[in-house]
């Protein structure tokens, strides 16, 4: 077990003008579960592969514990990896797959057998030890891939979208299993996913990447409540946060004719416009006509809650005389009394639950 440090780690593919991972700085504590998340092409898998030694590091350093592993080959790093397609050796039995690394390391047969059986017990794989991977279901293969990592008791687990080939229900189950297994084993884990729900539910901390640049690295709670910029705000949370450009007015910002209070000192350097963010659950149905008028386009009923996808009509903004255009809104309402499709509703942001970002830089303003 060990800490993991990315110290300005950079990866630039030859012939590519921009680095795929640009000066990544993350410190991962011993036993921590860190999730790297971002849209495809953001460099999250590349970062993980750099840590595994499967991708070269062009700049900066990577440390496992106090050991600089930047130029070590994968076999000398003492990390175990779970791959998206599991990468099980098709010609080997489940037991041989799980024991492969130990066999290479020269561990004696009885010891290998013992450790494989232990891992198999944890993962409910005992009846399948003599089967070949092709005779297993997707979920079982996934567990074998996990088992192969566990058996080694490495310093770091690396997981590259290990759940993306499972069906939705199994994914949710396995998600919990992996998270609890990791807590139990206490092995430092770096987990890559494009699914922000996985990121939020599994990680001790979440690191959001975009275009090879780290946007924010924080606990899921803090990431959700205090997104560092517009990208993180829009990426974390499902459905996504409502984000719109709004003009600054006296005492706050003008949201479709509705003044949202924002502390004066936060807006001093922001210019005429800011980007306002409101989470769907932070929009309330107004009992009168005082809020933003929104026409309901789609109602998504999820049982407990319902999500309203609507459009605020074009409107001349009083503050600037500009046309706001059609603005889409998503709001969460009580699932038992959702509005009808086509209905006109009035939405108001809950005071104190709005996020303000600089319109140019996209950076968060205020707390």
């Amino acid at each position, binding site marked *: 077990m060990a800490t993991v440090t990315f110290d300005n780690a950079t990866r630039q593919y030859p012939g590519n003008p921009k680095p795929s991972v640009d000066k990544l700085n993350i410190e991962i504590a011993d036993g921590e579960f860190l999730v790297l998340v971002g849209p495809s092409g953001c460099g999250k898998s590349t970062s993980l*592969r750099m840590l*595994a*030694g*499967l*991708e*070269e590091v062009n700049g900066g350093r990577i440390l496992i514990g106090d050991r600089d592993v930047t*130029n*070590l*080959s*994968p*076999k000398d*790093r003492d*990390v*175990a*990896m779970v*791959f*998206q*397609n599991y*990468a*099980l*050796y*098709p*010609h080997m039995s489940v037991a041989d797959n799980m024991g*492969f*690394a130990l066999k*290479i*390391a020269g561990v004696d047969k009885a010891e290998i057998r013992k450790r494989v059986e232990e891992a198999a017990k944890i993962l409910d794989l005992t009846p399948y030890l003599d089967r*070949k991977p092709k005779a297993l279901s997707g979920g079982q293969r996934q567990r074998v891939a996990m088992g*192969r990592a566990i058996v*080694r008791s490495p310093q770091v687990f*690396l997981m590259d979208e290990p759940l993306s080939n499972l069906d939705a229900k199994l994914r949710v189950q396995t998600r919990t299993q992996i998270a609890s297994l990791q807590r139990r084993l206490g092995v430092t884990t770096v987990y890559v996913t494009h699914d922000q729900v996985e990121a939020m539910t599994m990680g001790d901390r979440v690191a959001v990447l975009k275009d090879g640049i780290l946007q924010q690295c924080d606990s899921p709670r803090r990431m959700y409540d205090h997104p560092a910029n517009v990208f993180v705000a829009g990426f974390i949370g499902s459905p996504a946060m409502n984000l719109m450009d709004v003009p600054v007015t006296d005492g706050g910002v003008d949201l479709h004719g509705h003044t949202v209070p924002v502390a004066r000192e936060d807006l001093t350097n922001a210019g005429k416009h800011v980007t306002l963010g409101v989470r769907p659950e932070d929009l309330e149905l107004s009992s009168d006509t005082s809020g933003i008028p929104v026409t309901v386009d789609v109602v998504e009923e999820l049982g407990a809650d319902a999500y309203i996808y609507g459009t605020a009509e074009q409107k001349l903004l009083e503050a600037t005389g500009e046309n706001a255009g059609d603005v889409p809104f998503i709001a969460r309402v009580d699932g038992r009394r959702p509005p009808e499709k086509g209905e006109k509703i009035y939405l108001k942001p809950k005071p104190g639950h709005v996020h303000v970002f600089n319109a140019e830089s996209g950076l968060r303003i205020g707390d």
Partner: protein
Amino acid sequence: MSRRGFVLITLGLPFVFYAVFVLWPFAQAFIYSLTNWSGFSDTFDFVGISNYEALLNDDTFLQAVRNNLLLAMVVPFVTIALALALATLVTVGGSSTGAVRGLGRSSFYRIVSFFPYTIPAIVIGLIWSQMFDPSSGLVNGLLTGIGLDQFTSFAWLGEVSTAMPVSMFVIIWGFVGFYMVLFIAAIKGIPSELYDAARVDGAGRFRMTMMVTLPMVRDTIQTAYIYLGILALDAFVYMAALNASGGPQNSTLTMTQDLFNTAFKKGQFGLASAMGVVLAVLTLLFAAVVFLVNRLTKGKDR
């Protein structure tokens, strides 16, 4: 068109061609092998299996069979081993850090090593027979050039001890490039995640080759083995170009050469047909052995 008519045309017609031009000649060859037909007369007598009995006591033919079996054992093995080693180098044999990749400039090596395959076999044979010429050949020129004077007029193709190895070398030289390209394609078909996994599991280049590459390309190896085996059991063009007479003390004589001589020089078509049947049976046996070995080493589990 009626269903019956469709079947008749699409299945029946090809079958007729197949029967007339493939099956019937096979049967014909077998029938002739039981006769004393001289090849250019319209009469012949059935002599039973006496042609086969004659072959069993024909030292020249038995020598040819031994030569072919030696070829079939050495040529496929060495060609495949070399081709696989080279293919591994250019696909996954590169640096052990960073992504799995081959050596630098691998496409250059690939093209260069494919060259021999584009040259007709007879040309390969003739070029190398010139190369190995005792007095004016390049090989001896080079060897004496670096001071090995004992090779001044060494007859590579004229010595019993070297004629066969040199002939094998020429055949292998001609085919390594092609099989290398074949194996490169097979190795590229292996998911790269498997190599990544093996590397993270601690495997070095040798382990990766033994534990990932070989098991994953064994079907291609089997196919290559059979092709090369058939080629080695024939080898007519190479051997005829290198040593038209069968080499010193028949040491490079092949069954096909013996068959050709028997039929067209000695006018014994019946006996030659028997040789052809023996060759066909040996070829089938060879393929069966390759399949069996692959089976026994658990190839079917994939």
